[in-house]
């Protein structure tokens, strides 16, 4: 088994956090993961974001899912709100990772700020579990222009290849 295969064999659990509208992204794929017990949705409302209670709920959820599924790695996929609220992603990754003793990663999937984070904004379950700054097919680096829009990397074909966006 080479390094890539070892990485793929790791048991990963995804927590997808956001508003109900955010859940439209990759509906079919995420439902398949949910059916296999590899993903849970954390559907927040305005009050949770305004009061900051989303952070407590997220922490509780990650701990509960870890205890239930015992994954090797937990990936948190979050929508634009978490970025808009300046969530300290690294602190959450470090604190939860240290507490649970497994790798916890934040997949910053924010269309608004113009980046699609680790795993290309899909929980890192496809095409080699995602690499920071690469698109879902592993083609090229995404770079931000001054207006915040993304320059399309060479070989990019997301506009027609993405189904549920």
């Amino acid at each position: 088994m080479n390094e890539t295969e070892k990485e793929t064999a790791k048991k990963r659990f995804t927590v997808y956090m956001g508003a109900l509208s955010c859940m439209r992204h990759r509906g079919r794929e995420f439902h398949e993961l949910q059916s296999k017990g590899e993903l849970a949705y954390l559907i927040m409302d305005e009050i949770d974001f305004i009061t900051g209670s989303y952070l407590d709920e997220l922490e509780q959820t990650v701990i509960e899912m870890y205890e239930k599924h015992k994954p090797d790695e937990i990936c948190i996929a979050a929508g634009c709100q978490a970025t808009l609220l300046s969530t300290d992603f690294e602190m959450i990754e470090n604190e939860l990772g240290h507490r649970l003793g497994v790798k916890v990663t934040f997949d910053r999937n924010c269309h608004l700020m113009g980046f699609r984070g680790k795993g290309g904004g899909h929980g890192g379950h496809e095409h080699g579990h995602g690499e920071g700054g690469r698109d879902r097919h592993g083609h090229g680096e995404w770079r931000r222009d001054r207006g915040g829009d993304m320059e399309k990397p060479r070989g990019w074909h997301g506009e027609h290849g993405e189904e549920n966006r």
Partner: protein
Amino acid sequence: MRHLFEYIPPLRSDVFGFMDVLSRTNVYGLINDSSDYNNGTEYGGRHAARDYRIKVSRLRNEQTICGAADLLVSRAKDIAEKAPEYIFVAEGPAASMIGTDLDDVCRRIRRETGVGAKHVGINGHKTYDFGAAETLLCAAKCTSGGGVRRRGAVNILGGSTFDIGAENINAITELVRSAGFFPSVLTKGEKLPDFASAELSLVITAAGIPAAKYLKENFGVPYIAGLPIGKDNAENVINALKTGAAMPSRAPTAGGKKALIICEQFLANAMRDTLCGEYGFGTVIAASYLLMDDSFMQPGDRRLVSESELFELISSEKFDYIFADPMYKACWNNRGEWIKLPCKGFYCPTEKMPCLVGTMLNEWLDTELNGRR
């Protein structure tokens, strides 16, 4: 945990209800959000989004600082070239956190394009039926009545692709027409009907209630509420349209089979009436993650919020039958019989809702319950 969904996939958001209502009109929608909306692969995927009569503002980080008003007006100018009847403006969850004054944006759109613009109060946090209800209410507010009452005209309010489905809405329209009335219904590519001049409104799902109440309070258009599915229900609805009599509702009776129905409230109520009235069921409980109007709930009915509530409800009683989409099956304890009642309200593909108008519900129940009773 209240917001955790480990087994049930999420239902479509209010923005999809907004899109669904507008897809049956000549009105264009402008959504203030950062990424596109489409109904998913089973509806043609991304390419089909061109037909939704929707434009997304494609909000970017500079708008979080400078505001999205100019961007929205600019997008509205593109839409105005298509000469829509109105432009309805709504927003997604991230945009709602920035706090753009959409009423002011609508005033600017009217001033700068000459096309009427209305703000629909949704933000991507509630379920699709809430979006459909708010959009229908907005459409009702666009009508004036002109002081003339159209004799025999009946507004058909409520219903969406995602709950009862287009086939049932069309069949209800035909049923009303065949009873000698002139149905006023949203039609793709056509102007909004003049709801205010109708003689009566027929509310077919809970999403139609706010618009029906508005028309009654402001234009004196009375409404009756009921879904004409099932033999007796269809007769009662037609009778109520002709006489103005209230729709009868069946109270639970002692004995008989016990059932749980998880779906849109009016659909569950109509199925309950049929099961209790024509199939000898004793207790039928309606439960839904969608809107449930208090005045149409019966004792024992449940408005669901969390996943754990459904687990509790199913295990709390011994149901002989559960009528629900298989997406809820993960919460089932395998007691009783599960009868598949499809719902298109999820983001993931599901089966098509059967046509149940009039006696077709009886035929469907005869098939589904055959050999299980």
